[in-house]
């Protein structure tokens, strides 16, 4: 069995960095759309949701990676879901213990972390095939990338839709908030805007890289 696993590579910062930009879960992989669109209506909610997801992702990656030789292929998905659901329940209790107000704001979306395909995706695609250290870095990178993406959606939506950031008023009295930005459709608009930015940036980078190699060749 051990022969089918990839060799234990030294820890690379790449496992961490790829989640931030090159393989950003929201803007590049377009995973975990349900919480990304639903809870990103204010910067605070987006940040809290991102951190909760980061914790679940890290803990489930760690457990799944350490159990990877113990769990047969046939029951792996069931096991992953069990592990993920457990940590989501833990997060739910911990948030209630930290602040009831925060728990009130996130509401039903905490339990919905279970079905965030980002977490199951990392468990299946990475943690079940890599050793503990790499899986932890992968989870941290993806989690931070997810949190940053949620925050950039939440901040834009809160600023435009409510004229505030973290509840602090940004504009003078005359500002008419774009209510649509807080509604579900605003989530799609903002996501589209960010995807555009990411794709333009990527395209430019590939073009620069292409001309670079062409010049070097001539």
């Amino acid at each position, binding site marked *: 069995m051990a022969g089918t696993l990839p060799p234990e590579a030294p820890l690379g910062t790449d496992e961490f960095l790829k989640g931030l930009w090159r393989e950003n879960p929201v803007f590049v992989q377009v995973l975990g759309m349900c919480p990304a669109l639903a809870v990103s*209506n204010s910067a605070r*909610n987006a940040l809290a949701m991102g951190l909760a997801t980061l914790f679940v992702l890290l803990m489930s990656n760690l457990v799944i990676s350490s159990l990877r030789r113990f769990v*047969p292929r*046939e029951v792996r998905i069931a*096991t992953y879901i069990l592990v993920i659901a457990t940590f989501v*329940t833990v997060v739910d209790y911990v948030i*209630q213990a930290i602040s*009831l107000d925060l728990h009130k704001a996130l509401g039903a979306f905490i339990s919905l972390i279970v079905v965030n395909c980002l977490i199951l995706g990392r468990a299946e695609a990475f943690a079940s095939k890599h050793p503990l250290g790499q899986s932890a870095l992968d989870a941290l990178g993806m989690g931070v990338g997810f949190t940053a993406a949620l925050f950039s959606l939440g901040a834009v939506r809160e600023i435009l839709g409510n004229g505030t950031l973290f509840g602090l008023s940004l504009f003078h009295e005359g500002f008419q908030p774009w209510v649509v930005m807080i509604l579900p459709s605003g989530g799609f608009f903002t996501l589209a805007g960010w995807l555009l930015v990411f794709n333009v940036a990527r395209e430019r980078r590939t073009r620069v890289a292409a001309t670079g190699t062409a010049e070097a060749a001539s």
Partner: protein
Amino acid sequence: MTGAPVLEAAPPPVWPMYRALVGVGLLCGLLIVSVFELTRPVIERNRAEALRRAIFEVLPGSESVATFRALGDAGFEPLAGEPGGARLVHAGFDSDGHLVGVALEASGMGYQDVIRLLYGYSFEREAVIGIRVLESRETPGLGDKIETDPDFLANFESLDVSLDAEGARILHPIEAVKRGAKEHPWQIDGITGATISSAAIADMLRRSTATWISRIHRNRADFQRGA
């Protein structure tokens, strides 16, 4: 029985699957129970503290609180031990021990889900003198203005619920009107863009006051501090 030629390997062994599922299930169960037990006292303290804060907020001027339990069909008695499903009424007293008013819970369907709130009633002013939303999942930025909009909350600083001459019925049931259209002290100025949520608040207050205010008013003598 002929079917396709059997090319797959033999059926996977059952024992490793069983071991993995039961083992992981046991560990997960253990973890959940331990975290639940660890956090329960903190969560209960948070809940009690939140309720206490809410009571002081809806009964401005009160310094101490005592909780009472509604008896079968008439009066109220001080709560001792578990509430046991009975309706609870919290009485607030000022520093001299005078009754400021009572706080009750009301709930009803909002736009997204059930809204629960606490409201304060003053015997002297025969009015609702404050509300505080305990639980709501209203749309952030729109429906949740029932908790944040200062103009909306100003409606509940003195919302008339005076009783008729026999003390049996509320003279003017609470009603929600369009923003800026409030003419009478029993009307609630709604929130633009949160019509359903603000109407839901008016609705649950109207129903709760209709059931409870006359009964509480009749049994005012039951609410004694340290009884």
